[in-house]
C-alpha cells in the first residue's frame, strides 16, 4: 500500500438528541494515501459525518472519539482547537456539494480565493497567484472569472472556484463531499477530470464522499462502503463489481443500467445483522 497521509483507527461519532443517542459512525478504521479513496453509502450511513469528523467540524451535540487519528505528523485525535486552525483549509481542504451555498454571495470570486493566500502579499502579487490557481482548475478566462460574483457563475464554474480556493494553501489531503452531485452530468465529468489531474500532478490524497456507486467505481482507486455507521466492505474500485458483502451486491443490483433488459430491478432486503 501507498504510505498513508491519514490513518484513522476506531473512529466513532455520537450525536445527542433530546430522545436518544445516535451513533452515526461506529468504530471505523481506514487510511488514505496519495490516492483517490471513495466513501460510498446511502443517506444516513455516516459518510459525511466521517469527513467532517476528520476536520473536527462535528456540531456541538456530537462527540468524536478515536483510538488514533494521525495526519502526517499531527495527532488529530488530541489536537487543540488552535492546532486545528492550522490544519483546516491549510493542510486538509474540503470541497462541499453545492457552490451556491458555500461561496460568499456578496464577494467576487477572485477576492474570495485571495482570502486563502498567506498574508503579506501585495495586491498585484495576490491577484497573480489567484489567476494562476484559476488556470490550474482549467478556467479559460481567469481575468473575467476573477471579477464574477457567485450568482454569475454556472454550477461547474462555481465548483471550480471552490476547488481553486482549496488549492491555494497547497493542502496534502482534500475531502470532497459529493462535489459533483449538484452539477449536470457533462460538467460533472470535467470537474472530475480536474480533480483527477490535481491528485496526480500534485500528489494529493483525495477522500471522495458520494452516494453514486457507478461514479466511485470508475473514478476512485479504492472504495469504502458504509452502512449504518460502519465500513462493511473495502475493495479496489475496479473490483467493486465483484464485491462480496450482500449490502454492496444489493446496491449494485438495484441500479438501473442502459441495455439491461430486466423488467424489475432487484430490491435490497436489509439484514439487521449488517448494522450490528
Amino acid at each position, binding site marked *: 500500500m501507498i504510505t498513508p497521509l491519514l490513518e484513522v483507527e476506531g473512529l466513532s461519532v455520537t450525536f445527542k438528541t433530546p430522545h436518544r443517542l445516535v451513533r452515526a459512525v461506529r468504530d471505523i478504521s481506514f487510511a488514505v494515501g496519495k490516492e483517490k479513496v471513495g466513501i460510498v453509502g*446511502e*443517506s444516513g450511513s455516516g459518510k459525511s459525518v466521517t469527513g467532517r469528523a476528520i476536520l473536527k467540524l462535528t456540531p456541538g451535540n456530537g462527540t468524536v472519539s478515536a483510538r488514533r487519528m494521525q495526519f502526517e505528523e499531527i495527532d488529530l485525535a488530541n489536537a487543540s482547537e488552535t492546532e486545528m486552525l492550522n490544519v483546516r483549509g491549510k493542510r486538509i481542504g474540503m470541497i462541499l456539494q453545492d457552490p451556491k451555498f458555500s461561496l460568499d454571495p456578496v464577494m467576487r470570486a477572485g477576492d474570495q480565493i485571495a482570502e486563502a493566500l498567506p498574508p503579506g502579499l501585495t495586491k498585484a502579487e495576490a491577484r497573480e497567484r489567484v489567476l494562476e490557481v484559476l488556470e490550474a482548475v*482549467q478556467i*479559460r*478566462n481567469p481575468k473575467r472569472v476573477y471579477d464574477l460574483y457567485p450568482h454569475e457563475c454556472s454550477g461547474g464554474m462555481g465548483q471550480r472556484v471552490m476547488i481553486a480556493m482549496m488549492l491555494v494553501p497547497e493542502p496534502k489531503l482534500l475531502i470532497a463531499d459529493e462535489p459533483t452531485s449538484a452539477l*449536470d*452530468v*457533462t460538467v*460533472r*465529468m*470535467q470537474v*472530475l*477530470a*480536474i480533480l*483527477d*489531474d490535481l491528485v496526480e500532478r500534485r500528489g494529493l490524497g483525495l477522500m471522495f464522499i458520494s*452516494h453514486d*456507486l*457507478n*461514479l466511485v*467505481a*470508475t*473514478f476512485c482507486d479504492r472504495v469504502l462502503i458504509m452502512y449504518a455507521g460502519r465500513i462493511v466492505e473495502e475493495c479496489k474500485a475496479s473490483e467493486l463489481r465483484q464485491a462480496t458483502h450482500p449490502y454492496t451486491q*444489493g*446496491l449494485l443490483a*438495484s*441500479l*438501473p*443500467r*442502459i*441495455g*439491461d433488459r430486466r*423488467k*424489475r*430491478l*432487484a*430490491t*435490497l432486503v436489509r439484514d439487521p445483522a449488517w448494522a450490528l
Partner: protein
Amino acid sequence: MIEVEDLTVRFGKGKAAVTAVDGVSFTVRTGEAFGLVGESGCGKTTILRALAGLNEDWSGLVRIDGKQLMPKRERAFYKLVQIVFQDPYGSLHPRFTVNGTLMEPIKIHDLDRPDERIDRVLRQVGLGPAFRFRYPHQLSGGQRQRVAIARALILEPKLMLLDEPTSALDVSVQAEILNLLTDIRDSTGLTFLLVSHDLSVVSHMCDRLAVMNQGRIYEELTVEDLVQRRYRETYTRQLFEASLGYDKRLSTAQVKALDEAGA
C-alpha cells in the same frame, strides 16, 4: 394520448424574457411510456407543468386523449391526468395525514365509497391500510413517494406525469419505486410521461425518449436505439457516456475541446 405541436413557454417580459421551451413537438401513444431527458434548465419540467395545467402561459397546440387543451383546465381534466413530483418531502401537506391527502381528490371529484378507494389505493402502492392515519413526518422518503403516487392513482387517471420521481431517493429505494411504477403500468395500462436527468432510469422505464437541451428536443429515439448507440446527436452521446461513469480519456478530451472553443 398526448400530441404536442410547437409548444413554447416563455418566462418574463421584454429584454429579460427567457424562452424555456422553444417550439417542441412530440407524440405519446396510449399505454406507452415516454421519457424526456435532459440536464437542469433544459425545459423538461416546464413542459410537464404546462401539460399539467400548472402554468397557463404557453402557446402551441396540445391534445390529450383527443381533446385540445386550453390554458385553463376543467375539473374533468384532472381526473384524466395526474402528476407525481420530485420531492416527496415538499409535495405532501405536512399537517395532513395520508388519509387527509387522499381524501382531497375524492372530495373535489365527489367520488363515492371513499374508504374503499383509499384502502385499495394504499394496497396498490404497497403501503397497506396501516399507513392511513400517519403524517408525512412519520414516513420515510420512499413511503412518502408511495403516498404521492397513491394520490395520483386514486382518481384512476389515464395519463401519469412523472417529474423526476426518484431523484430525491437513495438507489435502493429508487429501485422499489421504479418497480412499483412498472407494476402499476402493467396492471392499469396507464400512459407515462417521465421526466428525468438520468438516462439509465429513463431507459429502464420507457419505450421511447426525447433528448432535450436548451428548450428544444434534439432527437427522439427508441430505447433500443439508445442501447445500440444509434444516436445522431453529439449531446446524446455525451449524456450516454456520462451515464457509464467517469472516463479519464473522454473527460480530459472534453475539457480540452471546451478550451479550444474558448467557451
